[in-house]
């Protein structure tokens, strides 16, 4: 049986001081986040801040010809919609659900009031934003200097962390889009990782049977990002066991 949903499945809301959490709880609305759904479009209005719990949302840079490249992933460690509290209201990138699941949403007006009071939510959201900046910057450097195989390892680990799982439902086409590369390159890199027993890929499901092995193969970029998230947000262990 599936565990009941709770906003505490999201590490940011779980890290809120009790009083702040209680105040926000009535405003946190559980919503399904279906695969491919655009949380917001480039330059589009953002009515809610989203706290993913069992889903992953990709932030994508959109090119003039309509093609896109992933710039960051957000899951149960973060929020989608930072433009709402940073003061810009919109952002020239889009946010799309890349792994279906659930999340909670908070209305923009409630968020702004709460953020303006300068309490626990403000502190957490700003620190999260700094961690997110590191994720984006490190991905840019990694994509420039490291092999596609290493990029794929980094990307897989970041995604699994954000689902608190060892399995990811993902097509190679989607991964290629995220990494901003061609699909055959991803197929080749995935085949190598599979041959070495680091991943098992079958019917759009990627399983990582031995995580330490994958961590041994990844470039330092993954550790740089993870350390920064841990340092800034001092991650608590997942409160809800996804397998129970």
């Amino acid at each position: 049986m599936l565990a009941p949903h709770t906003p505490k499945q999201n590490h940011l809301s779980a890290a809120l001081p009790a009083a702040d959490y209680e105040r926000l709880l009535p405003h946190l609305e559980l919503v399904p986040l279906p695969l491919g759904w655009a949380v917001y479009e480039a330059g589009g209005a953002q009515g809610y801040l989203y706290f993913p719990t069992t889903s992953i949302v990709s932030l994508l840079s959109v090119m003039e010809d309509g093609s896109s490249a992933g710039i960051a992933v957000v899951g149960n460690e973060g929020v989608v919609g930072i433009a709402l509290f940073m003061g810009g209201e919109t952002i020239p990138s889009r946010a799309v659900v890349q792994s279906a699941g659930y999340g909670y949403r908070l209305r923009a007006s409630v968020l702004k009031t709460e953020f303006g009071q300068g309490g626990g939510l403000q502190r957490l959201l700003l620190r999260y934003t700094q961690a997110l900046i590191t994720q984006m910057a490190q991905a840019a450097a990694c994509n420039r200097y490291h092999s596609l195989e290493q990029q794929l390892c980094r990307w897989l680990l970041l995604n699994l962390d954000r689902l608190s799982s060892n399995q990811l439902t993902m097509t190679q086409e989607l991964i290629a889009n995220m990494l901003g590369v061609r699909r055959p390159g991803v197929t080749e890199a995935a085949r190598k990782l599979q041959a070495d027993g680091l991943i098992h890929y079958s019917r759009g499901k990627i399983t990582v049977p031995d995580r330490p092995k994958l961590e041994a193969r990844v470039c330092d970029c993954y550790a740089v990002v993870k350390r920064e998230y841990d340092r800034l947000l001092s991650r608590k262990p997942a409160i809800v066991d996804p397998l129970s």
Partner: protein
Amino acid sequence: MIENSLLAAVPRKEYRRLLAGLEPVTLTFSEVLYEPGETIRHVYLPGASLVSLLTLADGHLALEGGLIGREGMVGIPLVLGHNVS
């Protein structure tokens, strides 16, 4: 005239308050303002200088992830709540 446009956009009263804490500095070519993991003690509001934000891969290969000049400020982590680069 205030060279940095962020400073120029600060309301007059706040600007006057800030003035006492603003210290003119010369930024020389290739001077390092922050190293990764180092405590950030000052923010910089460039006037006629340009500052490059570099992200390192493998500890040495650098990629410019941002460029800051008179439109901006160097030292965002200090504002976001953590004083380490």
